[in-house]
């Protein structure tokens, strides 16, 4: 589903964020991406979305070399990838409901489907009473959950989540992880970049670890720390 071949990323200013990464994530896999602060996790995710271009190497998503993708096809790539951004990226001028609905509007879903699926997914992340709030009226964790709802609402084949539990307490965080695991069971490929010890250790899924931009570990049923 996702394949990287010798991918490197050097930001202008000669910051090497990723060095010669090769890896392969199968369809319906559930993978954690761990590594210390600045090790390149978000860069990894941004490149899958074509938000950043790799400096070297090739990235395949769903079998296609996304480096070759013409500009106008990029939105269609992104519609197949739900993404929870580290900084949420909610639309400040839209309510919770509208933010989540936006992912469906974009792909042209009819109104009745939208008005049915949006409240359902918002209920799943526990924000039914915030349906009509604006993002700035939400707590950090609530914003994060809206972002998770938006990433899942159109049932994408791939879900990327960058630090999806960074602003959540352990119990809410466990709920969200359950949600993601269920999503994975229903066929979605899930990639989660995280620092959360507890989350990684409990799930016992495949763990890819980055260190200073290098892939230093790829373990099938891993834990957060090497131990």
């Amino acid at each position, binding site marked *: 589903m996702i394949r990287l071949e010798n991918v490197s990323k050097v930001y202008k200013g000669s910051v090497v964020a990723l060095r010669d990464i090769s890896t392969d994530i199968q369809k319906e896999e559930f993978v954690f991406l761990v590594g210390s602060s600045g090790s390149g996790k978000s860069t990894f995710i941004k490149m899958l979305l074509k938000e950043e271009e790799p400096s070297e190497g090739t990235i395949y998503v769903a079998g296609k070399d996304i480096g070759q993708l013409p500009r*106008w096809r990029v939105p269609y790539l*992104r519609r197949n990838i739900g993404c929870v951004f580290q900084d949420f990226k909610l639309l*400040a001028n839209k309510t919770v409901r509208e933010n989540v609905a936006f992912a469906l509007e974009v792909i042209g879903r009819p109104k009745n489907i939208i008005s049915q699926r949006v409240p359902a997914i918002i209920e799943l992340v526990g924000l039914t009473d915030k349906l009509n709030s604006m993002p700035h009226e939400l707590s950090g964790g609530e914003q994060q959950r809206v972002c998770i709802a938006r990433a899942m609402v159109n049932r994408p084949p791939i879900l990327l989540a960058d630090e999806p539990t960074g602003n959540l307490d352990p119990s809410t965080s466990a709920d969200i992880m359950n949600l993601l695991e269920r999503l994975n069971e229903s066929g979605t490929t899930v990639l989660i970049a995280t620092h959360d010890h507890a989350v990684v250790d409990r799930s016992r899924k495949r763990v890819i670890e980055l260190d200073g931009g290098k892939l230093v570990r790829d373990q099938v049923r891993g834990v957060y720390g090497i131990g």
Partner: protein
Amino acid sequence: MALRVNYFVDETVSNLRRNVLLTLAAVSTVSISLLLLGVVMVGGEVLTKMVSSWEGKVELNVFLRDEATPEEVKALGSQANGMPEVEKVFFESKEQAFEEYKRMFKDSPAITENVDPNALPASYRIKLKDPNSAEAVASRLQGQPGVDEVQFGGEAMKRLLKFTGVVRTILVIAIILTLGAAILLIANTIRLGIYARRKEIGIMKLVGATNWFIRVPFIFEGTVQAALGALLASALIYAGKVFGLDRMQDAILFLPLTVSSGSIIRMFFTLLAIGIVIGVFGSSLALRRFLEV
């Protein structure tokens, strides 16, 4: 697709409502810019009318010899009438000329009392389609039998024509200047409005929106703002006509200081069209650099 239109309309309305400051700024800039443009256009119309009426007063005077035979006079008249540059030809007999002369100097009886009614020559007064052709027509009539002398206002008329020429040039410059200013000012405001929302645009792209999906609401928004601006500008100009021009007109009847309501309606549609074109192009262009995500 019908659903899309629905979304676009909703989106446009909510953008206009939720970014009140941006909406107000855009509408006021559009209306001020178009107001200036409209004022120049209306003023230009008034001035052009005035200038044309001055030019319309320019005439050629073909003075006839006292000895000219009636046949010569008639032939001359029909020759003048046949010229393509000529609009109208009047004949002024010796008596009419004297009457006119007396009218001119009615305040100075000392002058008229001493003039022999027969001293003044008969003449053709020729009105031209384009006053600039006066010299050419004059020189063609000059040598004709029965013609004593052709006068075409000479220096004074040349000056008048140069002056009206300058007025017309200045008007064209003023319209170009205000149109250019309106385009730049409106484009600037649109760009700033989009700049203030650049983050939102980037987010929309990352969530999978196509450029058109993002662009359409902005274009709708620009159109609505342009329409409101044009309406406001036209309303102000109409108020200016009713409370300003029309009252002035009452005070000075001799100047054609007037605009018809019809031409204000025409101006409204012109402003509307200009505003919408700038709005649509401006927002499309301004969006470009923020859509590259």
